[in-house]
């Protein structure tokens, strides 16, 4: 169904809920009344013709008062249906001075963290939310940073928040311990902090776990240690200036965040990308995907105690890093894509180097399998552990290999095509329950391993068929008209989405990054009762969470 059909359907079912259908946007949106929000969401989810089971993104946009229009905070909900392959954007306008909305956690559990982030960074209160606490900022922070009129406090617990103040000052006071209290203690069980300094949490993440001996009662993830405010920074540095920041959002899959950001701006400005540039993008992306999956599977093995396979994978990844250095000059944070193409050409020498590496790598791919995949202990640690069924996966917003590991064959490259992926021959890998049930930790791990092989296939085809041509269209200064767009790419951690609100200037009005790890964390609390601590480590490793992606 097209967006207008969906809107008509919604109007038919809930006549006075819809205020306006904004069809002028690149992604048409339906504006509903705040009081009818939950009803509309529930209808859109359950109605047989819309079936929007997947809440992609919850965003808050702050609009200052301008002329007669009062200030408002817009909550934007991007919905999607895997079955019907259609989606819509819902929007509500909330009063800026007292923004209150109903929570949609009862409809899509994944909204929990998105709404917490809106509460934290914008000050929106959600009635009915089970656990409305700050998620990125410390619990006793004053103010909502993403608001347009936000003034940063000068001190926090006596610590100056301004760099110049730090330089002038000789001594700083030590922060008190009040702000470290995060969860209310539940009596009777041992409470532990797993993290934030922990080798197995893939970055600086804290888990508050309550255990009954070895078995967990609850494991609550506590994020925000790596929050750098990249979304707010992008409002200050402009479109091109955000490109290096997107590298740091997902540093293992930097090409993908670059690509997504470039796609968003290209869609806003209607910029065409030359064919050679598309091929360069695909080659760079697939190389990056292989490198990222190598780290993901290797780190999972290392968390389970097998130190050796990770180092073999690192050895292979070094060659990819060398190729990346030839392509764009950097080994980890590439800053390679530009609006309208890529920054540098992949010359023929590098293409030959990639081909030679592929010849070397295809047999070496199997080395990892030989090392660890068939190991009895490894299988017993992962098979039948932390099983995620497909409905849970969709409801909690899992994407990428996590979603495909549960059996749902959805790959953004094939099903919401972008770039030239649909010109290549490759398969979408799903979990098959090879050693346990479908959707266990081993399936997610196995999906990543087999995706490496698919990436190798794509790379071979791309290297064969790369045409001559330019690698970058000349663009005028980026100043998109006032519009909104949501683009997504398939990164190694799943759908990497970018919601950009432009307002006619050369800086984005609001940019929001939808990352796979952020939503993957929400399912950990749901799955944790009954797991053991060792299983929690296996779960985190198999979900391939990356802390900078969560916190941005």
């Amino acid at each position, binding site marked *: 169904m097209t967006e207008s059909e969906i809107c008509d359907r919604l109007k038919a079912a809930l006549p006075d809920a819809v205020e306006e259908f904004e069809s002028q946007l690149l992604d048409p949106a339906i504006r509903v009344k705040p009081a009818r929000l939950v009803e509309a969401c529930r209808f859109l989810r359950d109605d047989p013709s819309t079936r929007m089971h997947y809440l992609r993104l919850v965003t808050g946009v702050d609009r200052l008062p301008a002329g007669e229009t009062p200030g408002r905070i817009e909550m934007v909900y991007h919905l999607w249906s895997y079955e019907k392959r259609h989606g819509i954007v819902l929007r509500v306008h909330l009063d800026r001075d007292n923004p209150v909305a109903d929570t949609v956690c009862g409809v899509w559990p994944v909204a929990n963290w998105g709404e917490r982030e809106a509460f934290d960074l914008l000050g929106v209160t959600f009635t009915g939310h089970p656990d409305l606490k700050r998620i990125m900022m410390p619990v006793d922070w004053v103010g909502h940073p993403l608001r347009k009129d936000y003034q940063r406090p000068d001190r926090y617990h006596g610590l100056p928040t301004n760099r110049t103040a730090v330089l002038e000052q000789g001594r700083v006071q030590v922060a008190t311990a009040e702000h470290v209290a995060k969860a209310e203690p539940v009596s009777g069980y*041992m*409470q*532990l902090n797993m993290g934030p300094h*922990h*080798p*197995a949490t893939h970055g600086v993440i804290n888990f508050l776990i309550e255990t009954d001996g*070895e078995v967990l009662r609850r494991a609550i993830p506590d994020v925000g240690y790596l929050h750098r405010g990249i979304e707010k920074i992008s409002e200050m540095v402009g479109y091109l200036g955000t490109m290096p920041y997107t590298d740091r959002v997902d540093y293992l899959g930097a090409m993908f965040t670059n690509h997504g950001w470039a796609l968003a701006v290209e869609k806003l400005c209607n910029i065409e990308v030359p064919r050679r540039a598309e091929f360069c993008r695909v080659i760079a992306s697939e190389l990056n995907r292989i490198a990222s999956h190598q780290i993901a599977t290797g780190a999972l*093995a*290392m*968390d*389970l*105690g*097998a*130190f*050796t396979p990770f*180092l*073999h994978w690192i*050895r292979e990844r070094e*060659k990819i890093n060398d190729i990346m250095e030839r392509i764009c000059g950097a080994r980890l944070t590439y800053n390679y894509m530009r609006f309208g193409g890529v920054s540098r050409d992949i010359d023929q020498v590098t293409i030959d180097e990639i081909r*030679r*590496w592929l*010849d*070397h790598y295809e*047999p*070496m791919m199997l*080395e990892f399998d*030989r090392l*660890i995949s068939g*190991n009895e*202990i*490894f299988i*017993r*640690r992962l098979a039948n552990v932390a099983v995620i069924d497909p409905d849970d996966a969709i409801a909690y917003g899992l994407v990428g290999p996590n979603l495909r590991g549960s059996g749902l064959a959805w790959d953004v490259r094939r099903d919401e095509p972008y770039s030239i992926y649909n010109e290549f021959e490759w398969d979408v890998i799903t979990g098959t329950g090879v050693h346990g049930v479908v959707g266990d930790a081993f399936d997610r791990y196995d999906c990543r391993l087999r995706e490496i092989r698919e990436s190798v296939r794509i790379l071979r085809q791309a290297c064969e068929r790369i045409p001559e041509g330019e690698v970058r269209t000349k663009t005028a200064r980026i100043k998109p008209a006032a519009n909104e767009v949501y683009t997504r790419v398939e990164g190694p951690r799943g759908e990497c989405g970018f919601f950009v609100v432009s307002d006619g200037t050369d800086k984005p009005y609001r940019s929001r990054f939808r990352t796979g790890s952020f939503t993957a964390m929400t399912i950990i609390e749901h799955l944790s009762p009954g797991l*053991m*601590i*060792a*299983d929690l*480590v296996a779960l985190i490793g198999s979900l391939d969470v990356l802390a900078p992606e969560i916190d941005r």
Partner: protein
Amino acid sequence: MNIMHYLADLLVRSLFKADPATWPYTWIAYAVVIGVGALLAFAFVAIFAGPVTWIERRIAGRIQSRIGPNRNGPQGCLQWLADGIKCWLKEDLVPATADKPLYLAAPYLVFTGMFGAFVVLPFGAHVIAADLNVGLLYILAVTSLVVVGLLMAGWGSNSKWALFGGVRSAAQLVSYEVPSAFSLMAVVLMAGTLSTQGIVGAQGGWPWQWFVFRNPFLFAAFIMYFISAIAEGNRTPFDLPEAESEIIAGYNIEYSGMRFLFFLFAEWANMWIMAAVATLAFLGGWQIPGISPERIAEAKGWTFVGWQALSFAIFVFKGTCLVFTIIQIRWTLPRLRVDQLMITCWKYLVPLSMGSATGVLLLMALVREGGIVDWVMRGAMLLVGLLVAGAYIRKVRATFMADRDNYKKMEGRDLWYPPYRLP
């Protein structure tokens, strides 16, 4: 003949020209000899535990396709010394809320437990500190001091993760003492004595005289003892108490400097004890092929010393082979979860080891030593052992060759380098 007695008497006779039996100060000579013996054993532990870490890291590097420490000294052979000095010079942190007496005493208790077992290890034909009549049982008893020490460390650190690690470790060690003891009981049944020298003396130098190849139950007992010993020593795949990626070193978390080194030291020393007990119980200990213990006892002067040195070398060689196997297992396998660990012990190893002890009893009653059935069993087990070793070598070699060719195509140089041409 008790070598400590002999040396003490020699000392008294030669230095003081007195008869040891009637001289009132003989006990001083005994004390001195005991002290020297303890120092020698401690020296062995030190000389073993230090370089074995270097060897372990080089082997780990080799397995992991990298080099390993190679900067301190030629090929990095002084790395362990550098690490030891660094740890020694570190600040000895005691957490403010730790239970001080327990926290401070725990490493020493663990170390004593480990080190006490060295007293009865038969390093050579007569090179043993004290040939106790209950030697093997003494080893099992003294290693239970380690459990108490680990609990002390876990509690004394006053940290939940440390307590977790300590309790996990205590549970693991206590559980795996059962199959380890049962497997060793099979050997004790065959040898008829608990004394370590007696057990070694009941075997012979040639492989078909070792206990491991005598009958299938003893073969199984060897494998079960090996697994239980690795579990007792907190090594991967059983290193849950110090699972670095889960609870970050468990009971060791709060320790630093020399105390931390004591724990590690005890772990490496325990590696040697595991290997040594497996060697003496199953692999023939110090027995020299073709030379009977009576011949050694009758030798005089330098021949005697030569036999002692040779038997020492054989014992150390066999022990080191097993230590290498333990190291290789560590860097190859992932670790078991705690419930899988307990299931392995109680559901599989305990019944199987009980069965093997019973089986040995049965065979001892039914089969005459030296008869046809006995030799057939020995030959069959030797064949099995050779087949297992051969299959392992073949599999490793095939895997390696597949990767070696790929690497050579890509890099242009060979992946493998012979051990004498270290990078």
